[in-house]
């Protein structure tokens, strides 16, 4: 049989099909990435009256903003870009050695203090039955376990910021969300800078990079212990207070 040439398939409409698909994707998708700032809220518990909470002025960094977007850090009227420096000072003032009585004190933590504290909590828990109190104490116990882990990893004691040291944010009901984010941004960038430094010192890789890699990891177990350690060393305690003028 004579060999016949196979007729060429007309591919002229291929482009139209591709266009159709393209336009479908253009319409159903969006370009902007979902980004945000993660915040862990605290569990709501009724703190029993007999537990003493030691809050001294030096351990508090109170940031307030009103509806006119004026910001006060401690007792000074401040512009937003200057908050970062103040937070940095708050963390670093006494980090290496006790020098400034205006900022949080750092206490040495060693294996002995951890062990005795855990033992004391265990003993206390045996006698209590109130569920709220047990939860409160269990949270405290896990904090001590984390500290113990840090000591084991670092193979020695470390200096820790006072346990009640915290940054408080107090806004009014009409303060714009934008201001909250701007303040949060300053606080986070100050803390993350310090964490980056610590992480580089210990592991040779910045904290931000570790977090990024962990989030991309499917199981979320990558750098888990490393991140936990850095977060104990440089704690992020941000408390958002109830607006005073909220009904």
């Amino acid at each position: 049989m004579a060999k016949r040439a196979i007729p060429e398939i007309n591919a002229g409409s291929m482009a139209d099909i591709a266009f159709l698909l393209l336009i479908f994707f253009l319409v159903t998708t969006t370009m902007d990435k979902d980004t945000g700032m993660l915040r862990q809220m605290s569990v709501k518990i009724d703190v029993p009256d007999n537990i003493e909470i030691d809050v001294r002025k030096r351990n508090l960094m109170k940031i307030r903003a009103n509806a006119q977007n004026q910001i006060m850090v401690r007792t000074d009227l401040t512009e937003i870009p200057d908050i970062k420096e103040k937070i940095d000072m708050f963390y670093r003032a006494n980090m290496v050695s006790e020098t400034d009585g205006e900022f949080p004190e750092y206490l040495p933590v060693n294996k002995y203090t951890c062990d005795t504290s855990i033992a004391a909590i265990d003993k206390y828990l045996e006698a209590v039955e109130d569920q709220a109190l047990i939860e409160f104490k269990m949270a405290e116990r896990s904090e001590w376990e984390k500290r113990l882990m840090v000591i084991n990893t670092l193979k020695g004691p470390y200096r820790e910021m006072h346990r009640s040291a915290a940054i408080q944010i107090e806004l009014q009901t009409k303060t714009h969300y934008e201001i909250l984010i701007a303040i949060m941004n300053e606080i986070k960038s100050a803390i993350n800078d310090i964490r980056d430094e610590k992480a580089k010192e210990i592991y040779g890789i910045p904290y931000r990079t570790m977090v990024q890699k962990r989030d991309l990891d499917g199981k979320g177990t990558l750098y888990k212990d490393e991140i936990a350690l850095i977060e104990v060393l440089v704690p992020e305690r941000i408390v958002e207070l109830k607006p005073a003028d909220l009904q």
Partner: protein
Amino acid sequence: MAKFKKGGGKASPAINTSALPDIIFMLLFFFMVATTSKDIDPMVKVERPKSTETVDLTPFKQRNEIDFVFIGKPLKAKFGDQVRLQLDGQFGDPETIGKWNRVKVDDKGAQIEDVITCLKTDKEVGYGYIYKVKEALRDVKALQVAYGAEQGKPKY
């Protein structure tokens, strides 16, 4: 002297368009990779504030560990000019978000501790409203919250 051809010239050759589909497919693949599907049509106006310390939420979204809530003024005037919550395709209030959150989490079969609630808030919403929403979430033990913000340098 050169002679010019007049009239009855050759028809211009057809342009080869066989590479056109390839070009379009390239564009198509680019858009498929660079964009994410939008699953909810916003009913409230949300203009996000900027921040440099944001976390990319896409991995959480892919793992189905995040719920989105929109907070802002309704886009359509007939829904009033008060700040509202948008829970999926419905308007809601701080009083109803707790229940909505529970249903969402139960549908996924996840633990409420593992699920993040992302508050995509308009930058002009007052903090009082956000505080109420957060308290409602705290009541149902949904403790992980993400403040929606765009990556970029803040205005201030």
